[in-house]
């Protein structure tokens, strides 16, 4: 409380002193904010930072530890042989994918020097001018070795991201559920109608017959594209014109809508999206998933009997699946873009044995993926990395019909996502949603400025 009349003998603060004190208080209050603004990706001396969602970390899961060790070993090898030093920065996957850490870092000009990028984000980062050209650091043989795996990471002849893996999608199924329903391998569906029939037989009050991704997001779009492609449809044609409003699109949307409407596919993911738990607990019979689940089964449910099969076809359709996978990128506005780009090429895009072996190790030991380079795929196969029935099926049957994940920017993604969600979960008209999405994409592409969308 303010006391009156007790200030005799104490000098009252002068105006100057008061202003000085207030300025000091202001500076003290501002200091943490200013300092925290500096504590980002490029804070440490001359060392480059490599943001990723694999390591270094410790986990009870041996597969996760192996993946972390792969990153740690790679950076250790680089640091032992190069003047520019690199630090790994681990960011948990949910934060990396959906959090604001990475976008905020780039927005403030403090983005990491090296980072992982998915195809869905490629154009946004490229158009933002933060992807360094990796081509000068690569041999032509290495570029050729990558082949079509680089298609969605190129602009013109220049390579801006190097894939570390190729991840095809397929249908995983539970053998116990299959047997319990009196089904055998001979019943593996080859058409959409068969898959719905079998899903209907396999479902129960606590088990989903057939699971498609239900959460809106890039991943749901990624898992839906193959069904559209199989009917010959696409979002944009070869010239970049909008082709979304087609019979193939409507057919694919109708397929997912029917699966949900008839109760064969659930409206939410079983086991809150935990694939292995869902299968182990008997809550799932079939689930569209990626090759990465092979290593998860190996780590968490090595004895669980499961199988995989190719996406069934619509009438008159051609087999297609989507090929996902992450890439190494170098920040063109980072501390040392040249060294960062050199690192990416050294790690994954060199013709040297160590580079190819590193990819083999990643795709067949640390994880379960198809190697994006022909030489690595061949070497991995020779080393027995694709000998198991599941990996062999992925390599020989599922992967060859694959199409790289598109690199559509957010507006296009969102239009497609709304069409999928609206038809699948809200039961809206397939024709109306297709038309609305096509119009939305067309409006965007008319004013779009940037690298080719396809």
């Amino acid at each position, binding site marked *: 409380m*303010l006391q*009156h009349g007790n*200030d*005799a*003998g*104490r*000098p*009252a*603060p*002068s105006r100057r002193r*008061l202003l000085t*004190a*207030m300025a000091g*208080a*202001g500076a003290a*209050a*501002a200091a943490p*904010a200013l300092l925290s603004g500096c504590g980002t990706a490029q804070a440490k001396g001359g060392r480059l930072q490599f943001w990723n969602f694999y390591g270094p970390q410790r986990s009870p899961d041996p597969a996760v530890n192996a993946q972390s060790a792969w990153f740690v070993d790679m950076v250790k090898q680089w640091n032992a042989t190069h003047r520019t030093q690199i630090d790994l920065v681990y960011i948990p996957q949910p934060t990396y994918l*959906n*959090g*604001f850490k990475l*976008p*905020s870092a*780039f*927005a403030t*000009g403090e*983005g990491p020097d090296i980072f992982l990028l998915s195809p869905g984000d490629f154009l*946004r*980062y490229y*158009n*933002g*001018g*933060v992807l360094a050209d990796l081509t000068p650091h690569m041999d032509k043989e290495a570029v050729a070795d990558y082949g079509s795996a680089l298609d969605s990471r190129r602009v013109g002849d220049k390579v801006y991201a190097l894939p570390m893996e190729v991840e095809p999608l397929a249908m995983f199924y539970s053998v116990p559920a299959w047997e319990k329903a009196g089904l055998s391998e001979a019943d593996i569906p080859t058409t959409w109608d068969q898959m719905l029939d079998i899903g209907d037989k396999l479902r129960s*009050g*606590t*088990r*989903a017959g057939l699971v498609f991704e*239900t*959460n*809106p*997001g890039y991943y749901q779009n990624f898992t839906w594209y193959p069904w559209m492609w199989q009917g010959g449809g696409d979002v944009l044609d070869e010239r970049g014109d909008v082709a979304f409003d087609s019979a193939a699109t409507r057919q694919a949307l109708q397929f997912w809508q029917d699966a949900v409407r008839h109760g064969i596919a*659930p*409206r*939410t993911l*079983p*086991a*809150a999206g935990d694939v292995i738990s869902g299968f182990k*607990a008997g*809550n799932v019979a079939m689930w569209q998933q990626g090759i990465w689940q092979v290593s998860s089964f190996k780590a968490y449910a090595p004895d669980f009997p499961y199988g995989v099969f190719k996406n069934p076809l619509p009438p008159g359709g051609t087999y297609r699946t989507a090929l996902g996978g992450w890439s190494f990128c170098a920040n063109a*506005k980072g501390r040392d873009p040249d060294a960062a780009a050199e690192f990416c090429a050294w790690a994954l895009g060199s013709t040297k044995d160590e580079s190819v072996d590193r990819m083999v190790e990643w795709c067949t030991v640390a994880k379960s993926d198809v190697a994006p380079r022909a030489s690595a795929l061949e070497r991995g196969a020779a080393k027995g990395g694709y000998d198991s029935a599941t990996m062999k099926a992925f390599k020989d049957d599922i992967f060859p019909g694959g199409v790289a994940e598109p690199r559509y920017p*957010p*507006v296009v993604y*969102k239009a497609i996502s*709304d069409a999928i*969600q*609206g038809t*699948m*979960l*809200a039961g*809206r008209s397939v024709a109306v949603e297709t038309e609305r999405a096509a119009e939305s994409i067309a409006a965007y592409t008319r004013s779009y400025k940037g690298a080719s969308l396809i």
Partner: protein
Amino acid sequence: MSSVAAPDRTATPASESVRRSRPPGLSRKHREWVAAGLFLAPDVIGLLLFVGIPMVLSVAMSFFQVSGFGSYEWVGLGNYERMMNDPLFWSSMRITGLYVVVLVPVLFCVSLGLGLLVKQKLPGMGAYRTMLFLPYVISLVVVGLLWKFMLDDQVGVVNRAMRAAGFDGRSWLGSPSLALGCVIAVMVWVMMGYYMIIFLAGLQEIPNEYYEAARLDGAGPWTAFRTITWPLLRPTSFFVVLMATVAAITGGLDLVFVLTNGGPANGTALAIFYIYQQAFGFGEYGYAAAMGSFLVLIMVICSAVVFKLTRGGRFDDGE
């Protein structure tokens, strides 16, 4: 002869001493202002730095197209025009409106009811109060995961209970018609403990003599509530309505993120979720800033309406 000592002309009168110790030109009133300013300074500086300046910058950013990679392009009112023509934004505003209109009254009634219940002097009441308050101290992400499992279509405890009772299970988070209701229900579960404590504090301020006098006059519990509790709780009610409204408009992002990710079919995409998605998912910082500024304006209007309707929580006599 007695002598009287002549007054020491060098001695300074007390009043003059006080006057001289003051800096010239600074009256008592001014010194009080200075003191008040010094006391307020930390808060004011903090608000300016962490709220005021970011808000001004955010409004400024809304006039630019911001790439998210350091480039700014002046677009004037372009982002606001885009917002006016964006059906998804208006859909998110409609969902937010519905969310606020349902959440605030339900939260108010549940919290007030709980406040009245836990005011009773019963054995173990402290434990009840603690249990009811506990959800509020749990992270919304954890709450979201917890309820996601409980509302699972196949093995969730809610559907299991319904099946055991002879009903069909529902897809609580997978149906657009149910998902928003679930988000509201979970939010009520989280927040009710906090507002219960606020109401409890307000209820304990009401003197018991009023209730005793009413009882002597033959008033029953409902009459006592209507004529004593409700009017005397006005300041507390105002606070709860205002805070719950503001929290409903600007909060819930993390819960929606974990529970439904805005789905199904944008059914739970609150405005704050859509703004976050545009900013950090799509790198549309300028557009998100425009929507954020608009949302703040809506919030100010809502707050003004609450002030107007409740007269700022003042009693009828103006106290």
